[in-house]
């Protein structure tokens, strides 16, 4: 089981990323001077960011955090 502290820290990180993501989209949609720019940049940013976030969550779930922490503790006790 993933330790609650690791999970909480990761949640904060993802939250920061998602908030920044939405603020960038807000700026692109509200303040863009040229419509064709939105047609290009917005899809690249939206799709790219979602893919990166998704892969990051998957990779986070694959990490054996308990095993890592226990091996770190046993290494430090030597």
């Amino acid at each position, binding site marked *: 089981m993933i330790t609650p502290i690791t999970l909480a820290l990761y949640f904060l*990180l993802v939250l920061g*990323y998602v908030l*920044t*993501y939405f*603020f*960038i989209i807000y*700026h*692109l949609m*509200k*303040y863009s*001077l*040229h*419509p*064709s720019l939105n047609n290009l940049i917005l899809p690249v*940013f939206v799709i*790219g*960011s979602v893919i*990166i*976030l998704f*892969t*990051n969550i998957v*990779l*986070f779930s*694959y*990490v*054996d955090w308990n*095993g*890592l922490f226990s*091996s770190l503790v046993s290494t430090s006790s030597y």
Partner: protein
Amino acid sequence: MRNFTKYHFGGQKADEKVLLVLHRHWFDIISQFFVLLAMVFVLIGSFFILPTIFPDIAHGQFTNLFLFLENLFFMFIWITFFLVWVDYYFDVWIVTDQRIVNIEQKGLFAREVSELELEKIQDITTDVNGLIPTFLNFGDLQIQTAGKEEKFIFHNIPDPYEVKGIIMNLHKSSEQKDENEFSEMLKEKIHHDDAV
């Protein structure tokens, strides 16, 4: 001159035409992109080099952790790239046939918009200072005004001399228009008085 008819900004008047849209020169942003590029090199380098130095990363319980951290680093580079770009792209000076609008984007949470009517221009000076700005033809353009905000500064814009010429011409035609309107008004008044 480029065509800016497709450009629109918040607060644009119905009869107002955008004549120029100016961003800082690309050299101004390239230093920040160099840092990001260096990070990309570190990311790619670490992906190939670290597993050879620490075999546990390639075959062991640290593989997933390593991939996760690499991905996290890429996530950071990706979002920082767009933050830098937003700060650059939305920091803009718009010259229209009626006024000059300065939109200053400071990160994601601060945005300052100021404007200057063409008639209020008193003096325009350009400042291209240094080897690289001279070579790449970019610099500051300062507009002295008659309003509350005494100076209006365009920072590191490309081809400041040409921009100065365009704004000077706009200022002259705006003054000419004012004079014509005033003389028309006087003529009408004189005709009206004569008739009475």
